[in-house]
């Protein structure tokens, strides 16, 4: 049995639950053969991938849903063999070039170019072009992004590229100028609540509105997370009660605990404990920028505003360094150390004030 997130994922543009007008626009776009490359952008869990899949189906019919998982192997200039996972149908292929790490440029120059050059095999298809879906383009090195530029122009008659990113700020202007941007904003709390109710109706469950609201709020307006939470809540306790505990995702709970440890004690020994916890999160594949942002959010809710503005200043500096460098742990740890020192000083100042009295 599949998870609810998959089971209730809309398959057609006309069945999408929110941003309906945009869905209609996309449908209209698919009617023509001459549309440009696309770049879907928006926060995670806002439904970018779902929209892309619906578009593929609109373009190629249900056979675009017959997917194969395959591993492609390629050789780097230094003769190293690297594998990359792909998902494909007869008409499209999807891959995440940044999976290849520092070899991402090779993926673009070898694999993407090779795919782009070959015409569609199925001449029975109504479309003259195939689609290449590339995810997490914002994590690509600049080198790799540059390599994509002219490829996008040269082979446009045989292939359209659909890019999927969280934020457009790290995408080079030359690529942005070659795409039509499709903004997918996060669903509103009300939209999430409505979807949760809809799922429960289909599952024949009664969902108290208060619980739906609680889940939606805890989900950070991330629909995928909200649905996962709903299903977890069902496993935990059914019939639902309106005040039942909303089971947040594991790593967030872990991060909250981490923040508590930081608040409890600001010492080098404690910093070491924190480092282990951060490692733990990273090794579970939680993206470093998400860890960073969430940690800052949690820590600042525990601080006064005078401390806050200092924290934000350092956070943006260290996070910037982290994202332009390649060892996230150093910068996460540096930030925590900085936080501890600011916070400790602040606590000291308060107690001094008391002593003065």
């Amino acid at each position: 049995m599949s998870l609810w997130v998959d089971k209730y994922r809309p398959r057609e543009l006309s069945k999408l639950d929110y941003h309906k007008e945009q869905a209609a626009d996309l449908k209209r776009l698919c009617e023509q053969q001459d549309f440009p490359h696309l770049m879907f952008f928006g926060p995670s869990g806002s439904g970018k991938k779902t929209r892309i899949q619906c578009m593929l189906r609109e373009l190629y019919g249900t056979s675009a849903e017959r997917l194969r998982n395959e591993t492609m192997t390629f050789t780097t200039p230094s003769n190293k063999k690297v594998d990359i996972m792909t998902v494909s149908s007869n008409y499209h292929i999807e891959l995440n070039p940044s999976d290849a790490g520092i070899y991402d440029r090779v993926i673009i120059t070898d694999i993407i170019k090779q795919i782009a050059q070959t015409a569609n095999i199925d001449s029975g298809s109504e479309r003259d072009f195939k689609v290449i879906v590339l995810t997490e383009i914002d994590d690509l090195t600049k080198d790799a992004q540059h390599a994509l530029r002219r490829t996008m122009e040269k082979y446009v008659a045989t292939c359209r590229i659909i890019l999927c990113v969280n934020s457009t700020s790290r995408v080079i202007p030359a690529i942005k100028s070659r795409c039509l941007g499709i903004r997918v904003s996060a669903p509103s709390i009300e939209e999430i609540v409505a979807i949760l109710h809809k799922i429960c109706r289909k599952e024949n469950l009664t969902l108290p509105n208060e619980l739906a609201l609680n889940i939606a709020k805890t989900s950070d307006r991330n629909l995928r997370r909200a649905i996962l939470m709903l299903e977890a809540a069902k496993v935990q306790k059914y019939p639902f009660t309106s005040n039942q505990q909303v089971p947040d995702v594991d790593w967030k709970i872990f991060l909250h605990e981490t923040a508590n440890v930081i608040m409890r004690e600001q010492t080098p020994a404690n910093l070491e404990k924190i480092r282990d916890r951060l490692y733990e999160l990273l090794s579970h594949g939680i993206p470093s920028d998400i860890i960073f942002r969430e940690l800052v959010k949690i820590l600042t809710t525990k601080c006064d505003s005078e401390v806050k503005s200092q924290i934000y200043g350092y956070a943006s500096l260290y996070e910037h360094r982290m994202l332009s460098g390649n060892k996230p742990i150093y910068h996460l740890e540096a930030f925590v150390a900085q936080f501890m020192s600011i916070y400790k000083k602040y606590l000291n100042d308060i107690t001094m004030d008391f002593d003065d009295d």
Partner: protein
Amino acid sequence: MQAFLQGHKLSAQKPASFNSQRKEKKSREKPIPWVEKYRPKKVDDVVEQNEVCAVLRESMQTSDLPNLLLYGPPGTGKTSTILAAARQLFGEFIKERVLELNASDDRGISVIRTKVKNFAQLKASNIRPDGKPCPPFKIIILDEADAMTNAAQAALRRTMEKETRTTRFCLICNYVSKIIEPITSRCTKFRFIPLHEEKIIERLKFIAEQEKFNIEDEALKSIVETSNGDLRKAITTLQSCYRLKCGSDIKHSQVTLLDVFEMSGIVPDSYLEEFIKVVKSKELQALENFIDAFTYEAYSLSQFFDQLSIKIIMDETITNNQKAIILDKLGESSFRLSTGGSEYLQLIDFGTICIIAFSKQN
């Protein structure tokens, strides 16, 4: 996967843009996006960029050409211009006479030393295989040359020095500063300027005419404003507005201002107003709430910063000192954003600095 890849190879490596010129035209033209459809086919089709066009036209008369370095921002016609010229010079024998290498090709030292050198050493007569006259040289186009390493550029320089008899080089880049001096000094340099508003409007009107639809003057003007002289972007926006908003079933037959706002990714003014109001109120909590809501909307923060900078400069209620602090931070935040930095943290840091700026009296 294998099946997917084995689909018949397009006649070996031949770029699609050259295809359409060939005799063996497919029975049906493949539908392509407007940017490609309306890519200049002749040098005379190129909008603006008079200087370089004049030189290229002359080269067609005299059958000679200097080494070229074309530089300028994206979407100003660099690639199109040289490709159009090459096509006019060599007709359908472009493949024998022109080698195009771009950032998607391996252009390391070894490729420069072998592939480029070998091509440069080929003979080039002044008669085409079909008996017609043509210029007695070949052209090597190095597009997106700013992505080449300095070592590769140094290797290229040697080839350029040696193979002057039958080869002309054309380098294309965004920033001329990324090309080593010994190369730039061997080329005639042409700066491609961002296209002027009237020229873009003219071109867009031409396209709308060809595609047979109407567009409000207001909307046209707004497309031009948001494209910052990048014609590629302008054309894509135009097509998107028309295709998404003016289908057969549709609401309206004309592209309107609202469509442009939606398609070009402009941040609605209300968000800018709200941001300024919030930082002026100096309430950190209000700022946090605003940013939470704003990031969920997924607008491009770099776009937000661009628009905000203009607004701040124009705002007469903000003192010069405050502007200095805010704009200084804006520069830093934009830089961090483009080189690595998340929307949320950069914006909140920027916002707190704005609050500090407004807390100062003058």
